[in-house]
């Protein structure tokens, strides 16, 4: 029930977004089944290899997997990578540039094209995923049917993997829980409120301005109220501009942080007093997406990584990281979800909003124009 509200919102965005990718998806040839020589590069499902075991063998034969932009403290990726390493010791994982942005993942694939150092798989924000569908190879995992339609590109060029709500994390030893956005403008939050990144660059920070907009009576069509909110925050002397890291949260340098709820939840490990608030009337949600590099140097390993990520085990690991995994609804129904972890998630807002591609573009332009001056 809780998740469905979130998905309903995401569906809106994805439906309009996927229309754009229709032609790219149509032009990709389907794999020609289990022929003698399987071309892993064009395989669109595990059956193309004959069986899942055959896929595992092919991936082990390749012996390596290049992943990029997976910070170990992001959505529990550290544990997920370690599990893959222990499950498939034959496959060496190369963790490249964990802290780069979605756009830089695509750049890395372009500049390393044809080299065996190119990333095999991507983890991308929706905007970047939509603009680069020709860089992806379509693939449908075995649990494909359990992924809600709203979260997947129909041919499997990219698929939502985990998501969450924009939230405010705070150190409960220093502050009371903020009950509404405006509370943060108060004098008690002096020099205390930070955003994870710059909204003209990072998806999470962009979402923070989006949340501020809908919480200030605005809509996703116009981010101006959100920009105004942060401008007021700056004028009140409350906005902190230092780059938020686990270290700044642990040391108390950034005691109040706008970030995805699962990233804020992860800080609890380093600061036991850290609490997460998702405002309960209107929420801003977003999912990240998995995609396989069309020029992946290790195509079978890339596909095995996808199967691995959408297995019950890893979906629960994402949940453990405080994120809402793509198969959550189906797993809740099947009883395979970790109920304790699911219950620990912040309550879902009454209304969930996700910007469409067009709204994102308009907001991006507005931010590019106004943000730097608004927070000076």
């Amino acid at each position, binding site marked *: 029930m809780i998740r469905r509200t979130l998905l309903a919102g995401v569906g809106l965005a994805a439906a309009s977004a996927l229309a754009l990718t229709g032609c790219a998806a149509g032009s990709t040839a389907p794999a020609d089944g289990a022929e003698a020589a399987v071309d892993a590069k064009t395989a669109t499902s595990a059956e193309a290899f004959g069986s899942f075991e055959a896929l595992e063998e092919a991936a082990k034969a390749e012996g390596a997997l290049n992943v990029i932009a997976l910070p170990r403290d992001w959505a529990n990726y550290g544990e997920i990578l370690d599990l893959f390493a222990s499950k498939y010791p034959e496959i060496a994982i190369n963790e490249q540039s964990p802290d*780069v*942005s*979605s*756009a*830089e993942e695509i750049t890395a694939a372009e500049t390393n094209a044809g080299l065996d150092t190119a990333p095999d798989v991507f983890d*991308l*924000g929706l*905007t*970047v995923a939509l*603009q680069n569908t020709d860089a992806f190879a379509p693939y449908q995992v075995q649990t494909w049917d359990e992924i809600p339609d709203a979260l997947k590109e129909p041919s499997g060029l990219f698929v939502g993997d985990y998501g969450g709500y924009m939230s405010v994390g705070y150190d409960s030893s220093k502050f009371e829980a903020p009950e509404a956005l405006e509370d943060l403008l108060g004098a008690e939050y*002096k*020099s205390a409120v930070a*955003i994870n*990144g*710059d*909204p*003209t*660059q*990072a*998806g999470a*920070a*962009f979402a923070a301005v989006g949340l501020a907009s809908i919480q200030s009576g605005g809509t996703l069509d116009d981010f101006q109220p959100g920009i105004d909110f942060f401008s007021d925050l*700056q004028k*009140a*002397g*409350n*906005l*902190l*501009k*230092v*780059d938020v890291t686990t270290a*700044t949260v642990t*040391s*108390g*340098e950034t005691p109040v942080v706008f970030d995805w709820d699962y990233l804020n939840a992860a800080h609890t490990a380093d600061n036991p007093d850290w609490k997460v608030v998702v405002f309960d009337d209107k929420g801003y949600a977003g999912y990240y997406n998995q995609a396989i590099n069309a020029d992946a140097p290790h195509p079978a390993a890339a596909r095995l990584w996808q199967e691995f990520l959408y297995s019950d085990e890893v979906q629960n690991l994402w949940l453990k990281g405080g994120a809402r995994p793509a198969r959550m609804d189906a797993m809740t129904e099947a009883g395979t979800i970790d109920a304790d972890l699911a219950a620990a998630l912040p309550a879902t807002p009454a209304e969930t909003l996700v910007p469409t591609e067009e709204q*994102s573009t308009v907001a*991006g*332009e507005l*931010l*590019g*124009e*106004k*943000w*730097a*001056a*608004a*927070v*000076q």
Partner: protein
Amino acid sequence: MTIAPLTAAGPTTGSAAAVSPEAAPRASSRGAVASALAWIGLLPFAAYILLFLALPTILALGSGLFDDAGNLTTENLAALAEPTILLVFGNTVWLSLATAVAGSVIGALVCWAMLGLADAHPMRRVVDAGASVLAQFGGVMLAFAFIATFGLQGVATLLLKDALGIDLYADGPWIYELPGLFAPYIYFQVPLMVITFMPALVALRPQWAEANLTLGGTRAGFWVHIGLPVLAPAFLASLLLLFANAFSSYATAAALASQGAPIIPLQIRAALTSETVLGRENLAGALALGMIVIVALAMWAYSAVQRRADRWRR
């Protein structure tokens, strides 16, 4: 370098080769080899300049002047005139200029103080070595050193607050904004000034001061009429170097002030790596072009001043 083979042949052949008719052809062929060797010796440096100066300049020009489809466009250059970009260019120049002036004045005073010590004095060696290290101590480590010391939870901040009741950030956390960049910048500007300006001060010959005194001049008169005019070109050249140094700094600011990209290098990063405002990679080229123009102007002024300064170093 070209005379090295001649002098190496023996203590007398150097002058003999120049006058002896038989030796002349041999010497000139040796000279040709030596000069060819000299040119080969230049290759690594030339390749370095080509790869890391010429090529990036051409790429910046290319990406700034052309759009994604490869058509010539002035759109990106026009973006240089946007109010935000102009404001940020203004910030960057102001920050660079202010820290260059502060750094060069403080650095020059340090150099002057060190003149009072003998060449081999341990203190002078310590300052020399320290300056060489600290001039390179910029970037993320410097930023974190400042956060740990002067951050909101920094050692010095809390000490000031608890012991003296001084709240550094009563008006807001300015350390993470443009004003907060001044202190870290000056921190690496001063040592750079010490390194570059010390040789010029050392070249001030004691004989000049003695001559001045002998002729009835005063100490103040020495500085006004001899010392400062002689040092001015070297000082200005160092100042310009400091300006260029601050202007191109990136990592320190990236770690300290992450909102709103208050300086141009951070705007370039934003245009290149943004995952929310896409398709502005070419703006980065135009911004880089703007920076190249400003740095080129500074470097041109630097070399002009340097030429004048060289007169006094002979």
